[in-house]
């Protein structure tokens, strides 16, 4: 096959490209230029998009002996990932930009361009496995090293995207093995630090970066009954489940700590309450997809596990596709509606923000995902109020 290896300049994608060559494929390395202004050469790189990363990727391609190019996706990346990230936060949701990048850039903009230019597949350094079912259909599975497993951030891939994806690191027992292999292959990036955080926020200060772009204004901190109990310096500075920095008085009336339960960007309000109010017993979203072959009858509740963060533990759950009114406030059952993926975990999930992605698993297989739009609290406000 003709394979395009997406090379970030990190150790994983370098080894993935080399393994694709070893497997007999005709491989070309491509580094994605995702920022128009990568600034000056930055050493001790974290994240991606620096000149140093591009040079590291090129040196690895040289050693592997494959052609190497830099392709510009900065416009698409800005619109589909960076601007989306800002807009989602501004709307009070918590997006995952890495998933958006996989969905819209690596396995969409890049893959489409690769297919048009004569490639058969895009290979990346993600830790995930592709396996075939008994009919030969492609399935996405967790990597054999669960500690490094990245199947969560690939949960957005559709069957069509999966059909042209290749993850040569999926069966690797551990990251240490990949580093050892990189060193044996003579890659200068063998000991390069892992990238963390969000690549387009180089100093890691997500809140400050957002505040610069969305602005921050003082607003009210409310309790669950709507009573004002404090003042904040900007609603975006908070995350659901946050405990510290609320300044709502200590000790509280009931002696229990308060947690951020809800962020309301439109009114610039932050709602706080007791820890049990963070528990979610149902979550749902109308933007969902199946990773490969969908369930035979998705409208019939099926057993699965749900994972709501890249490194969260999966929770046993029931899920099904139901109907949700287009207008969430509609009470008329004849109102226009659309499909909605509903997930009911066997035990409540603590701390879940709209905008997060819930990925469904059956065993090691990734079944599908949805962006969380609504949650049902395990501790409704009436009970909480009574308890108080």
């Amino acid at each position, binding site marked *: 096959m003709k394979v395009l290896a997406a090379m970030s300049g990190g150790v994983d994608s370098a080894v993935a490209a080399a393994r694709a060559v070893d497997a007999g494929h005709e491989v*070309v390395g491509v*580094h994605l*230029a995702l*920022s*128009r202004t*990568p*600034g000056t050469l930055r050493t001790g790189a974290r994240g991606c998009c620096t*000149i140093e990363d*591009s*040079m590291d990727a090129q040196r690895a391609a040289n050693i592997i002996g494959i*052609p190497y*190019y*830099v*392709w*510009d*996706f*900065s*416009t*698409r990346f800005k*619109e589909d990932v960076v601007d989306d990230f800002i807009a989602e936060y501004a709307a009070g949701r918590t997006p995952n930009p890495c998933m958006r990048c996989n*969905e*819209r850039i690596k*396995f*969409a*903009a890049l*893959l*489409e*361009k690769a297919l*048009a*230019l*004569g490639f058969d597949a895009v290979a990346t350094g993600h830790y995930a496995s592709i396996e075939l079912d008994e009919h030969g259909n492609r399935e996405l599975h967790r990597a054999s090293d669960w500690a490094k497993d990245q199947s969560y951030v690939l949960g*957005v891939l*559709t069957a*069509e*995207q999966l059909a042209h994806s290749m993850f040569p690191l999926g069966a690797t027992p551990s990251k240490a093995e990949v580093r050892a292999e990189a060193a044996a292959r003579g890659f200068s990036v063998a000991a390069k630090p892992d990238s963390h955080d969000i690549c387009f926020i180089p100093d890691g200060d997500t809140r400050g970066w957002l505040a610069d772009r969305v602005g921050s204004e003082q607003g009210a901190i409310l309790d669950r009954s709507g009573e004002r109990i404090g003042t904040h310096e900007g609603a975006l500075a908070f995350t659901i489940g946050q405990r510290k920095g609320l300044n709502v008085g200590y000790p509280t009336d009931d002696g229990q700590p308060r947690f951020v339960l809800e962020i309301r960007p439109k009114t610039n309000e932050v709602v706080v309450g007791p820890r049990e109010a963070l528990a979610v017993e149902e979550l749902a979203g109308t933007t969902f997809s199946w990773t490969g072959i969908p369930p035979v009858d998705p409208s019939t509740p099926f057993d699965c596990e749900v994972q709501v963060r890249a490194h969260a533990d999966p929770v046993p759950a029931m899920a099904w596709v139901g109907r949700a009114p287009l207008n969430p406030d509609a009470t008329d059952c004849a109102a226009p509606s659309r499909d909605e993926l509903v997930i009911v975990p066997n035990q409540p999930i603590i701390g879940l923000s709209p905008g997060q992605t819930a990925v469904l698993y059956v065993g090691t297989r990734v079944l599908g995902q949805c962006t969380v739009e609504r949650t049902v609290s395990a501790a409704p406000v009436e009970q909480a109020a009574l308890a108080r």
Partner: protein
Amino acid sequence: MTVAIYLDHAATTPMLPEVIAAYTSALSVVGNPSSIHSQGQNAKRMLEEAREQVAASVGADPVEVTFTSGGTEAINLAVKGLYWARNSGSSLSRPRILVARTEHHATIDSVEWLAAHEGAIIDWIPVDPLGRISLAALDAALSSSPDVAFVTVLWANNEVGTIQPVAEIVALASAHGVPVHCDAVSAYGYLPIDFHASGLAAMSISAHKIGGPVGAGALVISRAATVTPLIHGGNQQRARSGTQDAAGAVAFGAAAGVAVARLADTAAPHLRTLRDRLIAGVLAAVPSAVLRGDPVDRLPGNAHFTFPGCEGDSLLFLLDAAGFSVSTGSACQAGVPEASHVLLAMGLPEAEARGALRVTLGHATTQAEVDAFVAALPGAVEQARSAGYADRLTILGR
């Protein structure tokens, strides 16, 4: 794969065999040209003979040739050195620089650095859609501003090949007593250059564009002009310190001799014939292609096109895989391909500017190579067009 067909002579052109011979022979000679002993004097003799060859190749006196590490250093020395020399008093009497946005980045980044750090004021002189500088705008700027440090202009544009009216530019500037620097890096060896007749204050040239080695260039500085040095030390040259590279100069001199001899003889007419064959072939094979730059007054080896609906890097990838070395013509700044600042300055919308391809011919190019390129191009354009622009909306993942 067979050896790739090299059609990127504007990036660098193969070293000539006689230059390699002269270079390697000179590399084995020991002696610092500044040493007083006989071996030093021998190195000095080689160096100065080379300086004479380079000076002769551009119609300048040897004392006017300051060797540099290449074209970029020569341009930096000219731009910053002229600026400082023209503002040598305690106040900035002449902070204004007149320059077009189609200049090479060595110039643009240097003048922008002067603006950011040294109080320079930049007057961007517009160019027409073919990339020719507006003489009327230049004249107006010179007439309305008594505080101009200098004018700097490309002899011929390195991307689109358009030749600038250097004589007219110098005439306008001279009428106001303003010196002119010319970046002749891409014109050198391809167009006749007579430095004394040009009336230029300074002119930058580079060896590796004419079959010499990379790492050797020169700033030709008129006896009448002053530039403040960038590099201080042993005062080995008029405008530059540092031990002189005798072997590099010998190779540069050898290349200069060959390039100018060929230019007068057959090189330029031969290149023009091949270039016109390539342009006609491309426009016939890909009717949507647009020739950029001046169709007549252009570098003899330069053909530059845009292909609507294509991303330049897609085309470059496909042609590279097919065995053709060409360029998108845009400076790959910081490793990030961007739409060419030259095409944008010529008024092209960004999308059109992204589909650029520069094909440059040189001393080794054959008609068979040109014909092979023209034959391979339509398929590559068709496939690149199916990939579209990188900023289009995707179908997958939505």
